[in-house]
């Protein structure tokens, strides 16, 4: 009442506008969660620090393929190109690091800060939410498990004298490249998210993921050195070895320094172990997210 007109700013109120445009429903919602998840996985729209780890891992994973292809294309036959079958085992250490750094990013804060009720009050189900988060991490992982092999593929084709003939020679490897890349990505994403979903903070989640792979790798290596019956068990302590065994069973090509080679276990057992790993991870996720009250 006492405020003088001169000191009062003018408020331009254009009023509330209704939304009459399209509503994309469940499909649009899932797409949005996957898209936002992918941005989070690669640290897009976040600080530079958040980009270091994911992009560092992507670059390191592609480096051996990229460098050897470049040398081969520029300088000819001085180096032997990597084989498709041992590449993923070779960059294996990067995969758990990527999962440990980026998986918690996707699930821990939504759980910790009670954001889930806001998701669940939208046109999606709990399964949709978890599936979309999984898809985001798995798609992100493809940049490590698939992209370098595609670089290698491109290099082999381009370095050949007869490119057309080389495409014919190499194209047979594509199912193996795509298959093992996707299996690695899906299984590692599932394991990583399951572990992350149990942790209260991102740092704990990252630590837990790393611990599982580190301990698994160490146990596996110890068993391998002890030899005998334990050597046969060695690959099953390490998720990456289980995946390598599955890859070998499906697409062939033994990796010299993988515990799978020394274990001498029938290869289908690795596929079974992969399914168990996947089932266990999804069961953990199902139980964890069912318990969230809205």
């Amino acid at each position, binding site marked *: *009442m006492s405020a003088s007109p001169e000191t009062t700013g003018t408020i331009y109120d254009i009023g509330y506008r209704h939304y009459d445009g399209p*509503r994309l429903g469940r499909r649009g919602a899932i797409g*949005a969660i996957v898209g936002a998840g992918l941005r989070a996985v690669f640290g897009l729209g976040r600080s530079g620090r958040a980009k270091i780890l994911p992009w560092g891992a992507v670059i390191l994973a592609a480096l051996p393929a990229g460098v050897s292809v470049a040398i081969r294309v520029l300088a000819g036959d001085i180096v032997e190109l990597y084989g498709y079958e041992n590449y993923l085992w070779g960059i294996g250490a990067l995969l758990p690091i990527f999962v440990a750094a980026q998986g918690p990013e996707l699930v821990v804060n939504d759980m910790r800060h009670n*954001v889930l009720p806001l998701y669940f009050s939208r046109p999606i189900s709990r399964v949709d939410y978890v599936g979309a988060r999984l898809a985001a991490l798995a798609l992100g992982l493809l940049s490590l498990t698939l992209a370098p092999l595609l670089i290698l593929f491109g290099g082999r084709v381009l370095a050949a004298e007869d490119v057309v003939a080389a495409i014919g020679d190499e194209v047979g490897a594509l199912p193996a490249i795509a298959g093992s890349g996707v299996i690695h990505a899906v299984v590692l994403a599932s394991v990583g998210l399951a572990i992350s979903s149990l942790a209260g903070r991102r740092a704990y989640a990252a630590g837990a993921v790393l611990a599982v792979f580190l301990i698994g790798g160490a146990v596996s290596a110890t068993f391998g050195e002890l030899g005998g019956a334990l050597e046969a068990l060695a690959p099953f302590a390490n998720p990456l070895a289980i995946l390598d065994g599955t890859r070998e069973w499906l697409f062939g090509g033994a990796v010299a320094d993988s515990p799978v080679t020394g274990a001498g276990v029938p290869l289908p057992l690795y596929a079974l172990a992969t399914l168990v790993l996947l089932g266990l991870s999804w069961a953990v996720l199902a139980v964890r997210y069912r318990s969230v009250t809205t």
Partner: protein
Amino acid sequence: MPLISTRALTKRYPGGILALDGLSLEIGEGVIGLVGANGAGKSTLLKILLGLIPASEGSATVLDLDTASQGPAIRELVGYMPEHDCLPPDVSATEFVSHMARVSGVPAGAARERTADVLRHVGLYEERYRPIGGYSTGMKQRVKLAQAIVHDPRILFLDEPTNGLDPAGRDEMLALIERIGRDFGMTAIVASHLLGEIERVADWLVAIDAGRLLRTAALSSFTERTGQLLVETEEPGELLAARLADRGMEARADGRHVLIEMASAVEGDHAVYDAVRDDAVALGLTLLRIEHRRHQLEDLFRGGGTDERVA
């Protein structure tokens, strides 16, 4: 046709707790106050209406959609503001609200536009680009409200929207809710245990107690000739109180405030308002505020109805 209707809705939680007990009601358009003490079943009712939890018995429809089988379709057209904290601290309000718009099914471009609009409507300006973690409680409540209306829902469910706010923050939130109901054309169901707040914004009240419907009626039938009228003037209130007392009303001055017992007005509410206006003009007073003050929820339902409350 009612927007929301429930038939003999019962919810029994594991452990035998009966949250809703044969609740049947119909809700039309407007700002609806859903009042009841803590534990009366308000939140349970909202969650069943959103299709988030199943009812043990009975059925409910929202916008003619069945809550048991068409939850996702319902949730596309309603907005929900939960009672508790639910915001991630490390993203900005703009980022978060526009993400939530997209999760409601709004395409990216429209989501950005609507986020800017809605954040302005709830009163968040420059701060909307800063991480939510640094916001005050009042600002966080605004973000919670913004994410509930960003997809332009037909119905809005607000669960204790003034929780944790100071008096000024409460007033602002209530003003916002009133505006949403009046200017935005949304039907808002406001669950609260504070009748005094609800009555300031609601035009229809649904009172539940122990999971049962206590009463549902237009707000005017609840509030007429009950409670107190608070009149604030720039000048001391003694003269006004004295004049009103001469008219046979129970009025007392308290500094620049005058409190009038509504029940003491023999000719009804309007007579009180008219008297305040006429006397203020006669005395040359500057009226700052006239506010209808409500007693607690328990008072309202004591004696079974408002008609018998007239002293």
